[in-house]
């Protein structure tokens, strides 16, 4: 029961590609570290998030069968 609930939560939050969720967490963590050091950090998240999205899309497309 607890295992099924955990699996449902994982599926709900993480979705099809766990790397996207991990990339999001790492990006926000790195942003917090840079900001805590007193450096400009706003630029990191847009760049990193789009890079994570692009990698995920390319991976999924490579696994998709070609359609006529």
């Amino acid at each position, binding site marked *: 029961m607890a295992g099924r609930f955990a699996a449902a939560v994982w599926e709900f939050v993480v979705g099809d590609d766990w790397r996207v969720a991990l990339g999001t967490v790492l990006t*926000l963590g790195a942003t917090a570290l840079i900001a805590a050091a007193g450096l400009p950090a*706003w630029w990191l998240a847009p760049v990193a998030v789009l890079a994570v999205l692009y990698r995920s899309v390319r991976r999924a497309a490579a696994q998709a069968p070609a359609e006529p």
Partner: protein
Amino acid sequence: MTGTELSLVVSVFLACAVEAVEAFTIVLAMGSTRGWRSPLLGAGLAGIVLAALVATLGPALTVLPLAVLRLVVGGLLLVFGLQWLRKAILRAGGAKTLHDEELIFAREAGAAERVASAPAEGVDSYAFVIAFKAVLLEGLEVAFIALTFGANQKDVPLAAVAATAAVLAVVLIGFMVRGPLARVPENAMKFTVGVLLTSFGVFWGVEGAGASWPGGEAALPVLAVAILAAAWLMVLDLRRGRRLVLTTGGG
């Protein structure tokens, strides 16, 4: 209404409308094959569960400190937004089949006809459970989007109104059409929601992490345009890649 409030309404309305179209197709398949009473009971009960979830968690979220709320909610919106945008890009780029409501309706109606016929009296458990699950599962993500977006804007009621309006619009149009809503541009709506959720997720997540945006809130529309442009470039890249594969016959 401010620009952020308008974005909240548009995001929640579109997200809710897309999911409502998908849930409506399944409820319609149950109702038209096994009678309306049980699927409507199932859908109604799921709607009550979702409303109770929003009403319970909404006030709890709004008491969190703003920085914590923005970091956690920004992160969640970002994860949800990227999931929506990823699927929309793959569909627009031809790497994933588009959602076909008529096909889903036919499949669900066919499955319902193969199950033992509905009882003459009482609740038809098959139709009830299928409709309940469809509405609950399709609605859960929208409930979280409405909650997180609404909590960050300190306006959960506005998000709830937008969600309710979307459901009513879909149900009204659905009963006028009396068929699956196959002509709704679901992927364009998902694309828009994905861009908006990702933009707000990045914006709030960065603020919650302790950084500040140059230009303050003026950075948000710039961010949305940049994410939209990048997402569209990814679609073009996918389409070009798939054309190359087809013309060369390679993999």
